[in-house]
């Protein structure tokens, strides 16, 4: 060894345990340096960065691209021969119809029917000499099939009505209440964001705890004169920064590339994400307290996060799910995050919508942290 005591300028400091006396001018904060250590470690861990940031984004890009522009049930219809019903339509009525239908004229009835079966056309329309309009459609896409039938029924009824030369007795004026721009990206963004935040916070807390216990970093922290509060709060800071970074990236990507339209109170998503992060961290803390190995912590976290994401409507809306499943989803913190995030991001929800959710999430975090505290172990027994 080249460095020995003789070349070392430092002389043993006076005994007495006051380490700060040795260099009182240097001020250091255990809280900031611990937070910095965790952030640096995370930044340099490519796998962690991928799963926390890029993987959810890949999902957003994937779902966003797949569903882009598919919200209007534009149908391709083949018209065989003359169909007086359509041919006679002119002006406004015709242009309204062209918005939802693309009508192609053919003469080969059998061949066209085959094309409908294969899905090249959504429907085929013919009209007999007796005035009977025949519609043959494919039910491969049930929503579109339903819409088609509705369109044709109304066209036929309107034509019938005009033929009687009487004013209609009843009229329906239907209008959508949401912003007309409620495209899939409007519910995909809050859903996938919720999933990303849950993944980051649950796995982050669980794996850190187990890794620290296994490598004895936890023992080192315990043997250092810093409080548990310092350790916990710096871990919270790191998780919050991660969650905000995820939120920022998600909103930027969704608004710039997929036409997400934010409503007035969208900033409320930040306190919502913060409260949810605490709730997810408490789940991770519990998983990390129970698990002995990183593999176990990983497994437990996965078993919690994935079903929770599906049940909370992260990937698709839960409106169509059976009632009992919706009830199950109501005990999950992610359900409330997704719900409220949707409300404030895309449906003009305000503080009064977000506050109860925040309170609930914090309560959830408090209860689970309490349980985790009871199960917490400094050492592998």
């Amino acid at each position, binding site marked *: 060894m080249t460095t020995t005591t003789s070349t070392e300028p430092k002389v043993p400091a006076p005994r007495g345990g006051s380490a700060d006396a040795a*260099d009182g001018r240097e001020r250091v904060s255990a809280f900031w340096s611990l937070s910095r250590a965790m952030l640096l470690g995370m930044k340099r861990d490519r796998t962690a960065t991928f799963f926390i940031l890029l993987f959810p984004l890949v999902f957003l890009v994937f779902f966003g691209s797949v569903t882009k522009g598919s919200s209007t049930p534009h149908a391709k219809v083949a018209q065989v021969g003359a169909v007086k019903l359509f041919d006679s339509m002119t002006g406004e009525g015709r242009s309204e119809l062209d918005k939802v239908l693309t009508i192609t004229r053919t003469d080969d009835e059998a061949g066209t029917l085959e094309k409908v079966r294969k899905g090249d056309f959504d429907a085929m329309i013919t009209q007999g000499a007796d005035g009977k309009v025949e519609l043959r459609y494919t039910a491969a896409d049930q929503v579109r099939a339903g819409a088609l039938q509705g369109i044709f029924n109304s066209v036929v009824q309107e034509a019938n009505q005009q033929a009687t030369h009487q004013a209609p007795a009843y009229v329906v004026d239907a209008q959508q209440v949401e912003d007309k721009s409620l495209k899939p990206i409007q519910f995909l963004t809050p859903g996938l964001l919720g999933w990303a935040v849950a993944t980051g916070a649950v796995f982050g807390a669980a794996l850190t705890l187990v890794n620290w216990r296994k490598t004895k970093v936890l023992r080192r922290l315990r043997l250092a004169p810093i409080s548990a509060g310092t350790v916990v709060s710096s871990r919270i800071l790191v998780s919050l920064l991660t969650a905000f970074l995820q939120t920022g990236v998600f909103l930027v990507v969704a608004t710039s590339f997929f036409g997400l339209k934010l409503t007035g109170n969208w900033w409320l998503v930040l306190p919502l994400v913060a409260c949810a992060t605490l709730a997810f961290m408490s789940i991770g803390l519990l998983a990390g307290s129970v698990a002995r190995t990183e593999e176990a912590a990983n497994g437990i976290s996965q078993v919690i996060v994935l079903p929770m994401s599906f049940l909370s409507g992260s990937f698709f809306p839960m409106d169509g799910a059976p009632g009992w499943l919706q009830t199950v989803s109501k005990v999950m913190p992610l359900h409330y995050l997704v719900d409220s995030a949707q409300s404030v991001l895309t449906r003009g929800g305000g503080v009064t919508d977000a506050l109860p959710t925040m309170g609930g999430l914090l309560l959830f975090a408090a209860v689970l942290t309490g349980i985790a505290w009871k199960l917490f172990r400094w050492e592998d027994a």
Partner: protein
Amino acid sequence: MTAAISADGIRQRYGDVQAVDGVSLTVEAGEFYGILGPNGAGKTTTMEILEGVREPDEGRVELLGMAPWPRNPKLLPRIGVQFQASAFFRKLTARETIRTFASFYGVGPKRADAMLERVGLADKAETLTEQMSGGQAQRLSIACALAHDPELVFLDEPTTGLDPQARRNLWDLLRDINDEGRTVVLTTHYLDEAEVLCDRVSIMDHGRILHTGAPAALIREIDDTVRISVASGQLPVERARELLAAAGADVATLEDDTVSLSVSTRLPAPVLSVLAEQNALRGLEVRGATLEDVFLQLTGREFRA
């Protein structure tokens, strides 16, 4: 002056295994104290109880006049603990690692960097701890334990798994640490390490301390049997037995393993003269007792590291 460590009757049981079975010891301030024993002897558990990370089933411990259990924040800045495993944060460089740990004690980056240089890692400051060799990681671990200038240092098997050169370098460092007036407690399963470094050694096996003393004194206390060996093939073993008996030599063991002819005796002079008369001194080696013999004597079996 209060003793650096005083432990009295500590016991710890894991299920069916009595890991520590009534250990009492006193370490004076400034002493280099070794706990020597094979794997599974209870050294690590004893250390953990002394450090205050484990509560003993029974017994009482005081470090620098204070109880280490329950966690005592007043005591913590005065002790430094080096870990058997390399307990570092993930993906940090050596410099970032020691600065982080130093900050927990209110110690600034300058002192942390100085300590890194002290253990000869200045040129490895920007290396991630995951990419360091075993010896470098051990030195970093020791530097982290020393950054806050503790008066009592615990080292748990610091040289395990190091190559001979790295071990010797580390020994120099440990001796310097002790020379500065720090009390050092070291566990090891290397007898030579204890012999070279420690002022006093406790030999431990099956959770008990069998004997405590200065290494030289321990060796002297047991029968000083001298082991004399020469190269095989110079003197048949039967002939040697006859000659030695005729010369009145007190022979404990006599054997020929086809490489050496070895004789253990308390009185080397007559044995040596017999061998000289027979002109059978090629490859002569005379060796006194070592800690290994002490261990054999105390436990009745070979030392197994």
